[in-house]
């Protein structure tokens, strides 16, 4: 504190040359944001613990080995950590430079997925199979691609006179890019990825100056759409399951075997956990009651075992990391960095919020994983890579922001 005051006191006597040097210094990569890194590491550790306790029952039943899931996830976490540190040294501007080819490749991958992909025994073809790594979702890559592209494009628009304040500028290129993504994802289909990509894009455009009015319009349109589906005004076969989901959301117990099962068992897990929880490893719902205990409903298992206390702790950790991500965005060196950090953070935030809302019944069931927690090696790998990019942005934060962190 005293030093900072000294700096301010000294400022008037700093010469122009010094200023220039100071600017040079700012352009160089500094130390990464320690608080952000701490948040990531803590979430990763808690996430792995949660995954182990949530997965061993399923793992045992399916493979006769309780550690099947955790070992795989742990290996991906280690590789991901390494990649994160590597990426934190790669200047994000370099990555942003490639945003167009990256988007093109991701779009291509999404395009072929419905044809050559695999469904992993679900009802949608969302995965591509790779040797060694196993399966991964191209939609995960597309999420990053959108963030990268929008960071570059929106930053340019801001610099060129707040072009985003005009609606027509939203359509080109943002509108059609999102349009392509939505169409490609619909082919799988993949509702939750669509939601997350749209949400992330909107958050980035919002930061870049998109008029608030569009939210009012969007809110009205969305409300009308839900109303129409609910009252069966629109009867599109492909949307009928959306209505079923809404019905099951309102009362998951009315139709346990056909749709309400997941939500009902999630509520039971959370509710029966109580304030202090049943104790780590003592969860009951993971033994076959909760579908995907190690995946979409891992937070329910955590809440059951660790109680309200443990759940709030995890929420605080996420809140802290999200706060830190946005803090990095606010203090980024340039507008691209700001939008990139905000986009990565927003994507994380939206995934977390959607997952927690689903698990606690605030939102209809849709297959959304919880970052750092849910089982999925490639997803974790990508998540850590994104954190690496975020940390790289933090290296270029303004010095005073870094010090205050």
């Amino acid at each position, binding site marked *: 504190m005293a030093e900072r005051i000294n700096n301010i006191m000294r400022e008037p006597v700093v010469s122009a040359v010094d200023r220039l040097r100071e600017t040079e210094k700012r*352009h160089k990569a500094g130390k990464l944001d320690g608080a952000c890194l701490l948040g990531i590491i803590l979430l990763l550790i808690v996430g792995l613990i949660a995954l182990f306790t949530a997965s061993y*029952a399923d793992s045992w039943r*399916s*493979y006769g080995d309780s550690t*099947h899931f955790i070992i795989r996830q742990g290996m991906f976490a280690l590789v991901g950590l390494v990649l994160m540190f590597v990426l934190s040294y790669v200047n994000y501007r370099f990555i942003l430079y490639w945003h167009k080819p990256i988007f093109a490749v991701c779009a291509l991958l999404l395009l072929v997925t419905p044809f050559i992909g695999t469904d992993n*025994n679900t009802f949608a073809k969302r995965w591509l199979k790779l040797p060694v790594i196993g399966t991964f979702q191209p939609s995960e890559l597309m999420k990053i691609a959108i963030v990268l592209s929008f960071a570059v494009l929106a930053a340019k628009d*801001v*610099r060129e006179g707040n072009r985003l304040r005009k609606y027509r500028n939203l359509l080109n290129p943002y509108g059609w890019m999102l349009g392509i993504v939505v169409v490609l994802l619909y082919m799988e289909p993949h509702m939750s990825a669509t939601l997350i990509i749209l949400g992330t894009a909107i*958050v980035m455009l*919002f*930061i*870049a*100056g998109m008029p608030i009015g569009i939210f009012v319009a969007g809110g009205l349109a969305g409300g009308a759409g839900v109303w129409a589906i609910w009252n069966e005004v629109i009867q599109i076969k492909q949307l009928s399951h959306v209505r079923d989901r809404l019905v099951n959301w309102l009362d998951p117990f009315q139709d346990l075997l056909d749709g309400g099962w997941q939500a*009902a*068992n999630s*509520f*039971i*897990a*959370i*509710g*029966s*956990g*109580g*304030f202090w929880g049943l104790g780590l490893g003592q969860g*009951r*719902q993971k*033994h*076959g*009651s909760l579908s995907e205990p190690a995946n979409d409903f891992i937070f329910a298992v955590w*809440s059951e075992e660790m*109680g*309200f206390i443990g*759940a*709030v702790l995890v*929420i605080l950790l*996420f*809140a*802290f990391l*999200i*706060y830190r991500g*946005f*803090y990095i*965005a*606010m*203090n*980024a*060196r*340039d*507008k691209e*960095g*700001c939008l990139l950090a*905000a986009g990565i953070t*927003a994507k994380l*935030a939206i995934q977390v*919020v959607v997952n*927690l*809302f689903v698990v*606690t*019944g*605030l939102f209809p069931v849709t297959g959304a994983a919880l970052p750092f927690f849910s089982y999925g090696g490639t997803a974790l790998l990508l998540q850590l890579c994104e954190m690496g990019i975020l940390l790289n942005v933090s290296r270029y934060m303004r010095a005073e922001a870094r010090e205050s962190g």
Partner: protein
Amino acid sequence: MSIKGPDNRMQKRVRFLILFFCVACSFVVCAKLFYMQVIQHDLWTAKASDFQTQDDIIEPTRGAIYDTNMNELAVSAGSELIYIDPSSVVNETNTKNGYTAEQQQARMAELLSEILGVDYDFALENVKMTSKQWRQIKANVDKDTADELRQAISDARRKNEDGSQPAGYYIYSGVGYQSDVTRYYPNGSFASQLIGFTNSEGQGSNGIEEKYDSILSGTPGRVVRAATPDGDDMPYDYEEYIPAEDGASIVLTIDSTVQSIIEKHCNTAFADNPQAAGGVQAIVMEVETGAILGMANLPEYNLNSPKTIEREELRSELRENIADACEEAGLDRALAEGLSEEYLMYGGSSYLTEAQLANEELVTILTDQRKATLEKMWRNNIVKDAYEPGSTFKLFTVATAYEEHLVTGNDSFYCDGGMQIDETTYIRCHKKGGHGQQTLTQTLMNSCNDAMMQIALRMGHDTFKAYMEAFGLFDTTGLDFNGEGKGYFYQSNQDWYRNSALATASFGQRFIVTPLQMLNMVAAIVDDGYLKTPYLVREVLNADGTVRSTTQPKVRRQVISEDTSAFMRSAMEEVVATGAGKNAYVAGYRIGGKTATSELQRDENGEMHYTASFIGVAPIDDPKYIVLVIISDLPESAPHGGGAIAAPVVGRIFNDILPYLGVEPSYDGNELDRMDVSAPQVTGLSADEAAKAAKDAGLTCRFLGEGDTVSDQVPSVGAKIPYGSEMIIYLGGRTKTTEQREVPSVIGLTPENADYRLELSNLYLKRTGVSSSQYNYQTVAVKQNPAPGTMVDVGTVVTVEFQNTSGVSDR
């Protein structure tokens, strides 16, 4: 070029996002968590235990039923019922994996038929009923087989090494298990109406099984355990275990050996009297305690398949009833002829043709008639149904009058063939010419109706009725059996106080009592007047084998004095020794008894029907066992006299059970011919010595051949032959022939002729049945063993039963 970071508006908007995500959204989620985990905690905990626990009912093992010597009569074994939910056999995942619905169903049917051994087509048919959710595949599956099925399904459910699910992963879905307990009756039809059986729910539905259901069935236990939705155990400790309390076992007073003996003789009697529409019943009771040692009802049924009508005569009766019912309903009688024998035997629509099934009226008739036949077959009519006792009831009349000092042993009664009761009523004795002058004992020996009427009228209605009540005829005997029947008498005093009512009642007609009431009454008459409560259950054993309770014999009251009882015993002995009951005679034992031939109603052809019965007591000087045999509902055209057809059955029963029950025989001078002696060793002796040895043994001898030394003998050493039989002793190197003889038929011959016929064949005669001292011109052989035509060695003993066909009239 200056590089600028985010402008103020961007920073402002990012700050808004921080507020939105880190504060607002987090708060909402935390609030919802708080609501669910703290405020609604109890609700969700309750729901959790619903979802996470499996409440397994543990079926207690039903207690066994033992006979008095702890032989198992009914035992339980655990088993499972296996069903499928056809609606969930076909599932999407399989379809996606390339299995058509037909293939999935076929695989399931294959699995079921392979492991459970059910017919493949049957399994497939059920698997295809996709609109149903529960189809039974097999009941009574033992636990090992059920485990095998579980294992096969779980093997198919193992994932591949790489975690993917094999193509057939879901192929066997929709199989379910229910625990089930099977009841097994080791002796099949043995004492069937007495033991009863359990229904498909495992509850006793007849006999002892029904009466003692609550004791036998025990209390179901429960395991409330943490379980996954698949029913597997969860690896955390939550289990509330309320153990099942296994049912107690019942030890009956029934003695399997006695029961087999009476069943054997009832079967013989039923075969001898095939026209007995009401079947044959017998009871053996221990006089001093009231314990029932055996109770047989024919026709019987197999307890292991109570719904199968095994007896052919029951099936033809059923067919006849169906024809009658068809006619009544306006259908063609011939419909009954078209029924398959399998349908009559097993029931069930699968044995009916399409055309028969289409006739709804017929199906209703079939179901009703078959049910009626089954219920008749299951009914323990000794205990439940009443009959007109007939002449055995004369024991009551005499005992009561004697007790009241209205008659003495020295009184004489004149029978002129009937009695004018009042102006309009003349009641005949069964002997038209009358029995003439008789002592009190002779009235019983002759079974004289005239004398009974005189005695009863001397006694008056009130005394008669009071003793009926005292002997327990107005009430059930208190046997531990469901649905015990009791007597049915004149309902109004006006009817009762008519002299004709009293007169007919004196010889046991125009009212009904149950066979058991009758037996119990006679037991009291011979046992110093003590009326007891008969019982079937000797002990109740806890599941661990310790005794829970023991039945104490219960004396209800002393109805008549010891003197009266002594008189009755001597009179009853005379009935068997020289009276109408002489066919019940068993050599070496003192038997007392009374015959009865009671009138039933005339049938539609105007033919009178009769029930023949006999109550016997042995040994009559110290009554231990009492036996009642009833041959029910015989037409007049068939032999139907109690002394002729029921008494020999009682004799045969006593002949077999008394030695078994440890009553030593003692022969007096008149019955030495019934005593067996062992042939002594005479081969190698001199002729004189041999003659002496035979004489010492109670045998006569005949020499064949010349010489001093015995070279061979018939019969061989140690063979049992009747006292006084002739040994054949071969001298001088002669030996008996090794050629076998054919047993001649002696049925229908007099004792002398039978003896002569057998002697010609060098065979020995062993007499059973009516005492030799009671032989008359109508004494004939009725049974022989070995059967005629059997090839046997010389010197073989042929057992022949003689009966008197006259002098045993008792109506």
